[in-house]
């Protein structure tokens, strides 16, 4: 465990050194990421300015959800985007074998080898929106609600990393496909709206089956002190289950995989 932590820190350091060699790119992509995040919140404000409120959510409170969604997606992108892209590239180019022979857990290596620093500024933007929304909407936060909020962000990251990794693992079966790492985005993008604005089967799906509610709606509610213990338990169980499934599916798929270069 300690060994893996040391290796991970070495990965991060290595990526940081690399980024410093391409500083202009880092600045360019950071700026574009920040602008995209800012625009997202603006669009929500426009939408809710027109509809006033939807299912009890006003423009002010929606920023809490959208800001949280920005934090979680930026976090996921920071930790995993490059890795998921590289994984599908390894398979497309037949280079996965080179990864598998390394004396490390293969899922650890393919999932965490790279970090993308251009995502960090977006995280700050998301946090700023959340803090601003808390103050403007006059939400009384407590140490407990903040702790629950942060824990739920962690649950969301684990849950959606697992779902992401599950989808990208499919590349081992499909072989030639170069964009499967993007499949998660249209789904997680929808989490910027509070899931309460949906009704019927869509709401059910977003709460339980493909629970994008856990990306932003549930943490935002927890911050306002409206979290139900059952929801928290369901989130924990779902995150653990998807993580377990991703480990099982990865190992199962590797056994099926015949390689490309052999």
């Amino acid at each position, binding site marked *: 465990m300690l060994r893996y932590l040391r290796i991970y820190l070495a990965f991060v350091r290595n990526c940081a050194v690399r980024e410093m060699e391409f500083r*202009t*790119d880092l600045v*360019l*992509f950071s700026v*574009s990421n920040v*602008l*995209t995040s800012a*625009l997202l919140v*603006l*669009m929500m404000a*426009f*939408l809710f*300015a*027109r*509809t006033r409120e*939807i*299912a009890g959510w006003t423009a002010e409170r929606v920023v809490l959800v959208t800001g949280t969604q920005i934090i979680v997606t930026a976090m996921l992108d920071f930790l995993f985007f490059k890795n998921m892209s590289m994984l599908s590239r390894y398979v497309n180019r037949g280079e996965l074998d080179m990864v598998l022979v390394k004396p490390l857990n293969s899922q650890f290596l393919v999932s965490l080898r790279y970090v993308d620093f251009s995502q960090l500024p977006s995280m700050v933007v998301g946090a700023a929106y959340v803090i601003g929304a808390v103050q403007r909407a006059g939400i009384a936060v407590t140490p407990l609600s903040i702790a629950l909020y942060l824990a739920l962000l962690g649950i969301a990251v684990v849950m959606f990393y697992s779902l992401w990794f599950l989808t990208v693992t499919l590349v081992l079966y*499909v072989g*030639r*496909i*170069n*964009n*499967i790492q*993007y*499949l998660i*985005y*249209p*789904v997680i*993008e*929808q989490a910027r*709206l509070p899931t309460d*604005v*949906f*009704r019927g089967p*869509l709401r059910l799906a977003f709460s339980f089956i493909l629970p994008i509610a856990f990306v932003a709606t549930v943490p935002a509610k927890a911050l306002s002190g409206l979290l139900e213990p059952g929801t928290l338990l369901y989130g924990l169980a779902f995150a653990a289950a998807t993580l377990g499934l991703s480990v099982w599916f990865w190992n199962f798929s590797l056994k099926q995989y015949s390689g490309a270069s052999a």
Partner: protein
Amino acid sequence: MAVIEAPARSEAPAQPATALLPPLTLRARLRAYRALLAASYQEALQYRAESAVWFTFEFVQPLVMIGMWLTVYAGRQDVDGYARPDMVLYYLGVMVLATLLVPHPEWWVSELIRTGELSQYLIKPIPVAAWQLASEVAWKLVRVLLVTPVLVLSLLVLGQTVRPPALDWWGYPLFLASCVAGFALCHCLKVTLGCTAFWISKAEGVFSFYWLFEQLYSGRFMPLDLLPAPVAALGTWLPFQYIYYVPLQLFLGRLTGAALWQALGVQLLWLVTSVLLVRVVWRRGLVRYEAMGG
């Protein structure tokens, strides 16, 4: 920067093919274009899995937005002139038109320039623009196969919340013409965007600024006439709403009389401007490209 291998190119820089070969007859040219389109379609079919993944970017959001608006309409009849069926039809229209009218040649173009593969295409007797267009049209033909079942299913599920648009018979050909113009406009804008790779090594950075505006002003997220007035006013000076928002408004019967003709006139103007723009940028870029290779 660009690796250039073909020695013939330095001898005949601007249009090498015409210098090396006799001009094609019209018949031969038509045959060549038909073969090109057929080959591009075959190639696009090879990439159907990729196409399906990109398609999720186009159909998920409009359908989810319909879900949100249905909640809004549970409590009221009308949102600034949009009744419930109008709104549902609007997002179904966004789903279909954003899929079919927005090509993505910027990636291919910038990649060709960056890797120097462009040289291969420059020495062929068919203009590069034809390759680009054929490839984009072919990808859209595959998208037709993908969007049709999703549209049919959505119509079945949404059932009584949809009603056909109140459009005169002459509205339909006009709508189709406006769609073709929107596709051509978008294609030219995006080829221009891809051409920035002649000057910049990381063209994706520029793309993301384009997408920023496109996200808001294409009408993908919400109808532009529901935006706050000053924000919407800025949009009328940009080309993005002439890609599929204007055709869609026409289809919904929300553009009539003088406003209709004005919108179509501006669309045509943008189309002409974008064609001129892409020609200028392409020519200047080619000079630059050759300077780099030679």
